């Protein structure tokens, strides 16, 4: 491997002199992280800071009959022992519903359980002490008496009449239901040459961020202000929620987010223990810190997936897909998570299934039920891995049934590249996708014919290798259609403020956030290019609700496409302002000037006219020398929100090549390829690394990861020794390729790329496993994760 520090500039319509768009420049903020000098919330300490630890329910469902705290209160270092009932006087409960998910219902959730614990791990009492160790010591002394209640754990029976209802006031255990019936599904199945039917199961899994959730809340009673150092993806959303439930005005709350040790959708939700920490700070009038330990993370970080989908595809002998039908059932824990709700994943499954294909006949049912397990909510690629695995699993099973090559059946059914704008059977609107060009690119990039030939040759030697594919679409750049229309105060617009400092450097404040994706690099590239300075003259500030424009943060692959466009426009606006100053100093017309590499130049000849530091010196320190009545404006703000399309869909295709040891059931991943189309690529290296990281998270779902629960709702593997995640030695090299179809909604044309890898990887690993095992007569595996024992069972060996 030879590392080059840049790729050649790609000329686009965005090209300006010294353009950074399309260049793999390194992120500007990495040295502090490689030197261990970052500042994660878990690193934060403040004067008078106390630590909270929680007593958590050992039962999946239990009435709390009494809590004895006297002994704990006397334990060394203890500052306070607070129950749910006491904290409920400080903070109001919340209900995770959105009005556009019709019928979705949930029950009020408190920061600490009041009267009843609804999952194993729910906090029932808080202990605040001088140190975390002393708080944990005292937790041991809190005596909670429980009356165990029947636990609802199996989604299949959650709606049965004899199953207890978790929240009596709701009437049943149904959180949300959606049905869709498009075209003539029954007629299509009846007239198909073949119909394939199977059930897909997706293991409940979780994000396992390396840094656990962390918050330091600091209520200053003198200022009547709450400062929250929070490892979150959405500071302004959390500002609103902290204020709302503490009965404060939003301006009384400041959320500060510096370095975040991984997020992936885990850190974009309301967590009861984090809300409790903020409430405790208000109650105790001092800083309080909470950092989840790893066991707490496993039983309280949102889980995801856990869907059972009965699915059916119709196909004709010529490969035409005639119909898709799915029946999705998912259990989401005892509460719909606030404020994004736990109905979104099932809703996405309904929206996305069949999405890449022309097939007009589609029927779907999704039911989301309550259960006494940890809550489920949106985790990276929300719904996509499920919809893609169902769709692509069905497509490859159909191809096998009619004896057609898996790429050929896709060529015959993927929406044509010249068919746009168009929409899917489920009603998703596509501006411009490139399924066929992506497939052709993948075909040649991986040397498909060569890999097939190798597979065939090795099979004769008793070596079983498989090749699997997954075409996919990805929702990115969400407009208000995602949450805003449902009444949640989660903004879809974002803003950037750029200012010229007194030495001619540019400071950018943005409402998106950085959790490692490289958002700050992308913002810097956008501003450096549209304004006209070198990257080393741009400093980016994010993660501070006092100082950044109101914005949504980073989730749903929105930072580059939305935050980047706002930054691009802000840079342009400031360039206009600066050129007005330059024009007045130089007595020239602004339109004859430009800014290149930090110098005002003559636009046509490129002749240097005025360095920016000199312009800044005059504007800031000798404004008296400027013409009367002229005021320099050296700060500009622009906002952006997608308007023409509810979402900027991206597309792509992945392939997996793997080998199965048919004696042990172990899967060896040999190579993975991904071709995707995220529109304009601002930084190719960052896009590729989003893809690679996403692919590996998807591989984790396919092969290793599952939160195992017993029938009483006890999580059995809540630690990193028993819950397996992908490690370096099991992972393959991942080759990335690109097709570029910019969105016309923005000037940059960038769409998101953060979830494509996770969306497609489980499906193509599944398809590759089934491709490897097919000649051995194994029943197709559709129950993730595909552990060695499941593979051996499919082979009839155990």
């Amino acid at each position, binding site marked *: 491997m030879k590392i080059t520090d840049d790729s050649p500039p790609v000329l686009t319509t965005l090209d300006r002199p010294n353009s950074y768009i399309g260049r793999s420049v390194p992120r500007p903020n*990495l040295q502090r992280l490689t030197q261990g000098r*970052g500042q994660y919330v878990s690193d934060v300490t403040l004067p008078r800071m106390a630590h909270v630890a929680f007593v958590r329910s050992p039962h999946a469902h239990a009435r709390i009959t009494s809590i004895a705290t006297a002994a704990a209160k006397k334990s060394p270092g203890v500052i306070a022992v607070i129950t749910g009932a006491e904290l409920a006087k400080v903070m109001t409960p919340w209900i995770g519903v959105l009005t556009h998910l019709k019928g979705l219902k949930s029950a009020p959730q408190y920061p600490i359980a009041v009267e009843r614990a609804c999952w194993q791990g729910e906090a029932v009492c808080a202990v605040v002490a001088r140190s975390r160790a002393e708080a944990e010591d005292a937790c041991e002394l809190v005596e909670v008496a429980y009356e165990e209640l029947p636990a609802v754990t199996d989604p299949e029976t959650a709606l049965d009449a004899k199953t207890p209802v978790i929240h009596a006031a709701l009437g049943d255990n149904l959180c949300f239901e959606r049905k869709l019936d498009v075209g003539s599904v029954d007629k299509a199945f009846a007239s198909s040459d073949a119909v394939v039917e199977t059930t897909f199961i997706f293991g409940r899994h979780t994000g396992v961020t390396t840094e656990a959730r962390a918050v330091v809340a600091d209520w200053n009673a003198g200022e009547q202000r709450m400062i929250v150092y929070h490892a979150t993806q959405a500071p302004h959303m959390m500002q609103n929620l902290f204020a709302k439930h503490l009965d404060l005005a939003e301006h009384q709350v400041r959320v500060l987010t510096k370095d975040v040790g991984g997020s992936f959708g885990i850190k974009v939700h309301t967590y009861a223990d984090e809300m409790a920490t903020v409430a405790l700070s208000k109650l105790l009038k001092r800083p309080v810190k909470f950092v989840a330990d790893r066991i707490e993370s496993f039983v309280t970080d949102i889980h995801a997936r856990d869907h059972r989908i009965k699915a059916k595809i119709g196909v004709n002998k010529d490969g035409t897909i005639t119909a898709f039908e799915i029946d999705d059932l998912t259990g989401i824990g005892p509460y719909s998570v606030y404020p994004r709700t736990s109905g979104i994943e099932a809703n996405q499954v309904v929206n996305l299934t069949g999405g890449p294909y022309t097939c007009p006949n589609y029927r779907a049912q999704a039911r989301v039920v309550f259960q006494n397990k940890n809550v489920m909510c949106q985790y990276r690629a929300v719904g996509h891995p499920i919809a893609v695995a169902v769709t692509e699993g069905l497509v490859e099973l159909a191809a096998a049934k009619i004896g057609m090559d898996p790429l050929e059946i896709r060529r015959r059914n993927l929406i044509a590249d010249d068919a746009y704008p168009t929409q899917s059977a489920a009603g998703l609107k596509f501006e411009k996708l490139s399924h066929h060009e992506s497939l052709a690119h993948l075909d040649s990039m991986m040397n498909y014919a060569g890999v097939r030939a190798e597979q065939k040759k090795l099979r004769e030697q008793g070596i079983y290798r498989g090749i699997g594919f997954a075409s996919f679409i990805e929702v990115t750049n969400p407009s208000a259609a995602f949450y805003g229309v449902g009444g949640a105060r989660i903004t879809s617009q974002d803003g950037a403020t750029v200012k010229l400092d007194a030495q001619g450097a540019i400071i950018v404040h943005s409402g998106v956030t950085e959790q490692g994706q490289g958002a700050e690099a992308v913002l810097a590239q956008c501003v450096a290019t549209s304004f006209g300075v070198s990257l080393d003259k741009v400093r980016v500030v994010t993660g501070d609700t006092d100082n950044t424009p109101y914005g949504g943060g980073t989730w749903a692959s929105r930072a580059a496409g939305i935050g980047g466009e706002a930054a691009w426009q802000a840079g342009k606006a400031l360039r206009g302002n600066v050129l007005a100053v330059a024009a007045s100093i130089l007595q020239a017309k602004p339109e004859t000037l430009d800014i290149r590499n930090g110098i005002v130049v003559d636009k046509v000849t490129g002749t240097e006219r005025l360095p920016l530091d000199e312009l800044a010196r005059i504007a800031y320190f000798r404004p008296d020398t400027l013409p009367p009545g002229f005021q320099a404006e050296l700060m500009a703000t622009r906002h952006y929100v997608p308007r023409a399309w509810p979402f900027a869909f991206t597309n792509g295709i992945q392939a997996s090549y793997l080998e199965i040891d048919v004696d042990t059931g172990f899967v060896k991943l040999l190579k993975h390829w991904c071709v995707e189309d995220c529109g304009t690529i601002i930084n190719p290296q960052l896009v590729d690394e989003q893809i690679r990281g996403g692919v590996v998270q998807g591989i984790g779902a396919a092969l290793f990861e599952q939160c195992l629960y017993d029938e009483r709702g006890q999580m059995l593997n809540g630690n990193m020794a028993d819950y397996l995640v992908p490690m*370096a030695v099991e992972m393959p090299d991942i080759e990335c390729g690109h097709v570029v179809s910019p969105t016309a909604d923005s000037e940059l044309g960038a769409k998101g790329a953060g979830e494509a890898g996770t969306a497609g990887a489980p499906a193509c690993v599944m398809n590759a496993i089934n491709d490897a095992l097919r000649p051995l007569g194994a029943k197709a595996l559709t129950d993730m994760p595909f552990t060695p024992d499941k593979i051996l069972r499919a082979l009839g060996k155990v």
Partner: protein
Amino acid sequence: MSDLALDISLTVNGEAVHERVEPRKTLVDFLREDLSLTGSHVGCEHGVCGACTVRVNGEIVRGCLMLAVQCDGVKVETIEGLSDSGEVADLQTAFEQRNALQCGYCTPGMIAAAQDLLLQPQLRGGVPSRDKIREHLSGNYCRCTGYHAIVDAVESVAQARAGGKQ
């Protein structure tokens, strides 16, 4: 502080340290809480994820599996020390150039483990295979990168240190 607290004397990043610690305190908590060396991170707390990897008497160890009281008389090197001495500067530059870190939480431990591989005598100054790099780093969990870029970065440093002989 309990009555059972013990005095320890050790060298951390070249500086002499004398502290009184509780027997239950792990090395990584000691480094972070008592010495404010927050570059060593706590991930899994039971020796699986490698985020707390530091060097003790020249060997990499899990800071969460060693107690501070076991460190009396030892020499500890953390990412702060490895950075200031310049020992891992080439690895750090390669990680930055190759974007071999995203959130950066695993990176100090990852760099310590990579440096450990590149110092192994059996390499004899040669370049480890990608499989060997993956194997050596397989005790360090990274959720962000998918590892490919990390392997690239370590491989490039190995090649450079071997004088470009490949």
